[in-house]
């Protein structure tokens, strides 16, 4: 039986299953209830028990990655860095997604996307978001959502393609994500998805 497990690097810190929580982008490194000024990128990233609910990060908050340019980011409000394996460590990525199977399987055509929480091919509402896969020598962000431009969902050219992985019983994908609101108000029609084929 193949299963996905979504994790964030927080609390002790360590990789912690997100369980039924929500990934919350906020305007504060320590307070998930602080909204983001329209046009600005996230300055905090948290696990919340709802929309946003209460903070479930534990002792250490989820690493916050902020878009600076197509090839640059800021980690936790620090200095601007260029996207690379060295600068963006696995434990600095927003998400670790594990795909496991009892048998040794190879994965291909894997992709990460954002959607409205209902239809996989429809973009999240009121959001602009970028993502990059960590630890695969990527050097630039990929835009995965722009509601105002009708970009997003599990559609070619509107999602992040993930690297193929050879046969193993466990596959690990590290994903960095940054997001900003395109309008005032709560954005609840906003989910992330991963899809792949395997044998």
């Amino acid at each position: 039986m193949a299963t996905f497990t979504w994790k964030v690097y927080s609390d002790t810190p360590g990789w912690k299953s997100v369980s039924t929580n929500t990934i919350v982008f906020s305007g504060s490194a320590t307070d998930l209830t602080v909204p983001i000024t329209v046009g600005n990128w996230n300055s905090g990233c948290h696990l919340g028990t709802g929309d946003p609910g209460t903070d479930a990060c534990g002792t250490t908050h989820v690493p916050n990655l902020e878009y600076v340019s197509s090839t640059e980011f800021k980690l936790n409000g620090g200095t601007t860095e260029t996207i690379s394996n060295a600068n963006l460590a696995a434990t600095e990525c927003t998400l670790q997604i594990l795909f496991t199977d009892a048998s040794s399987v190879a994965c291909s055509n894997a992709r990460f996307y954002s959607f409205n929480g209902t239809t996989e091919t429809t973009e999240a509402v009121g959001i602009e978001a970028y993502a990059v896969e960590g630890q695969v020598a990527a050097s630039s962000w990929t835009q995965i959502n722009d509601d105002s431009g009708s970009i997003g969902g599990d559609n070619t050219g509107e999602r992040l393609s993930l690297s193929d992985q050879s046969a193993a019983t466990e596959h690990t994908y590290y994903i960095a994500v940054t997001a900003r609101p395109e309008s005032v108000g709560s954005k609840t029609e906003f989910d992330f998805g991963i899809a792949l084929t395997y044998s």
Partner: protein
Amino acid sequence: MTYERQDITEDFYAGDTKDIEVTIYDQDGQLKDLANSELTYALIYDDAKNPYTLFQKTSVGAIEIEITGTGKCVIHLLPGDTFSFNGTFRHQLHLVDENGYAGIVMSGKVQIFKSFARRSRNSGFEAYLSGTAS
């Protein structure tokens, strides 16, 4: 004794579970005693310029190659071994017997057809943010 042109040209699609049964004879034409032997199987990409090994299987410490009787073995290919392959490859089986005799005992071509019918899985996870006026 090497058996050349042990080709697989049909019915092999990328990602198939495949058991390749091989019979090995000694130089007298008798079934080879494989006790304490080491068998190594390799699938090779060969464009006649820069051939290289795609993967290997061994009879040592694993069940990748199973010795099933005198002169007989089965090479077990798993779905992940050939998942991304498409085209014509070469394969070889190498033997070292308990007396130290070493040699390629089987060689041939393998035609692997592209597989389009593959399992797919997806998963979703809720996200949230809130916007405020500047």
